[in-house]
């Protein structure tokens, strides 16, 4: 088990390193930022000072080394717009994003798993077709369309809910609803296909043949096995929520990280963009690590360390 954990941990570190390297490469590919962001009229000293601050006058590998060190210290430059460390700017916006992400994760998991399970158990019934059609619809509708349509109905027409802002709990409802509907659709689809696959495996037949009631076959034998693939795609689903948050926050004027990202891109506040990129990377890597460990906990085959032909 210790070896299992250490291997996973090492893999997470490698992934993190790749993401950091990626951020660095993109940064450098963009060319000399000094030339991009100062118009030719800017005094040379200002440009040079900027270059020096970013270490742009050093050889590339020194820049990379310094970059890594800086990243490790959490020192990622200043936000040009707010003139304070980019990290601070981003962290200030984090709570708003978590306020909609965490409820969304819960909601979509519960709704998605329940719907997917029911669909799998009553496969090819009208109910199954209904759920599956709804789920296809749920994940092919772009988040911004869904957000706008919900806003149009509940805010503009019915005037039940506010169309944007960050003041009362009511403001949370539409963003969360938008993200949950799309997310639940994906979860339902995975759950169904995973359940259907497990239902066809020989040990399910064995359980039925030894006299386990249908209901218990599902709860005791099928569900734990179906959970494995569902858990493994959870990281991917988290990514979906993060991606969707960017759009939804923009539509509902929700002051979270997603909206910050978009506005920073538009105003070319690269330091902030970079911090957000790395922050999301770290979050994703650790949630994937957590999922891997969870996976090992559910499935005894993963932790046994059984030898296998190379």
């Amino acid at each position, binding site marked *: 088990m210790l070896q299992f954990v*250490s*291997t996973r941990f090492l893999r997470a570190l490698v992934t993190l390193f790749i993401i950091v390297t990626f951020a660095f490469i993109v940064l450098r590919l963009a060319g000399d930022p000094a030339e991009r962001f100062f118009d030719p009229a800017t005094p040379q000293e200002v440009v040079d000072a900027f270059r020096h601050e970013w270490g742009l006058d050093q050889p590339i590998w020194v820049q990379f080394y310094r970059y890594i060190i800086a990243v490790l210290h959490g020192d990622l430059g200043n936000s040009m717009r707010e003139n304070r460390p980019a990290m601070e700017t981003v962290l200030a916006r984090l709570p708003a994003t978590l306020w909609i992400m965490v409820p969304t994760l819960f909601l979509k998991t519960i709704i998605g798993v329940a719907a997917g399970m029911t669909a799998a158990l009553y496969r090819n019934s009208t109910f199954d077709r209904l759920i599956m059609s709804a789920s296809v619809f749920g994940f092919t509708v772009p988040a911004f369309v869904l957000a706008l349509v919900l806003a149009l109905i509940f805010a503009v027409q019915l005037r039940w809910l506010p169309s944007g802002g960050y003041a009362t709990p009511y403001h949370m409802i539409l963003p969360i609803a938008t993200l949950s509907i799309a997310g639940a659709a994906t979860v339902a689809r995975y759950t169904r296909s995973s359940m259907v696959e497990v239902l066809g495996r020989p040990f399910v037949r064995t359980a039925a043949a030894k006299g386990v009631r249908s209901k218990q076959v599902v709860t005791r034998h099928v569900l734990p096995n179906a959970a494995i693939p569902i858990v493994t795609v959870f990281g991917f689903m988290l990514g979906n929520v993060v991606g969707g948050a960017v759009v939804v926050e923009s539509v509902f004027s929700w002051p979270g990280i997603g909206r910050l990202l978009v506005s920073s891109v538009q105003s070319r506040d690269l330091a902030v963009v970079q911090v957000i990129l790395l922050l999301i990377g770290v979050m994703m890597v650790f949630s994937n690590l957590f999922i891997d460990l969870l996976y090992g906990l559910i499935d005894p085959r*993963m932790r046994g*360390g*059984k*030898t296998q*032909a*190379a």
Partner: protein
Amino acid sequence: MKGQLTVKNLTRHYRLRQRGNLFARTKTLKAVDGLTFDVAPGEMLGIVGESGSGKSTTARLLLGHISATSGEVVFGGEKVGAVPDLAWRRMRRRMQMIYQDPLGALDPRITIGEQIGEPLIVHFPDITRDARRAKVRAVMGNVGLSSHHGDRFPHELSGGQRQRVIIARALVMEPELLVCDEPVSALDVSVQAQVLNVFQDVRARNGFTGVFISHDLKVVRQIADRVAVMYLGRIVEIGRPDEVFHQPLHPYSRALVSAVPRKGRSARERIILAGDPPNPVNVPPGCPFHTRCPQVKPVCRIERPELMSEGGRAVACHLVNNPSTARVAVADGEAA
């Protein structure tokens, strides 16, 4: 044209790593551990054994599909290598293999006729289309496929017909050596009989040297001139099928033969071995079979018996080769 196949001290070890682990010690799996045998020109050698005995690894080693850890395979005076160079390609023309799963070994998107002709395209690019077609038709006739099958796709044929296609594809090169790995195991009894008959017919016609691997003793007896019994990567007994199957000398061969069901015998007469074969990663010291042998003697746990031949028959067992030593060792063991 035939050639002699000589195998000397052939060994294939695999290094194993703990699954999903970067730091673990590696272990060695001895899939094939010191095989020595020859197959005379035109002879068919059968190899029997259970899973993990190294039969399939042997097949791939013989054809240079994988490289040997040590030892060598010589066919018709030329060493069989595993590096895909010019010599390897030249050897490929002379040696062919037949697989267990006929559907998997055929490309589902290419017609039967083209697949049978493919070795010709690969090795003799200059041959004309018509000559190739004629050759393919002739070979198909030999294995009992009619020419209209040539335009079909593998999924349109039955299991037995597919296996005939595999045989035809191997035969189109007029190979001098044919290695067959469980060629009839996936087939139903009635179809298995058809394919075995095809084997005998094409052998009578083409006269290649052959190695026939199977877990089914009855099938091997039907087809082979000599049979080798493998256990944990080693040959424990080798001889003519009638001798080995009627008077097996090695205790393992004896158990294997007694496990073959036959009518008019009660199930009670089987020799039941205890336990599973050991994992090839942990081959026990001494005789590899001693953990399950009903007649185990103390010497078997210490000393590995050599394969000793006597008049075309060879056994690797202390009890058979050197009964006196075994007895003495027993006495020693009791004294100690």
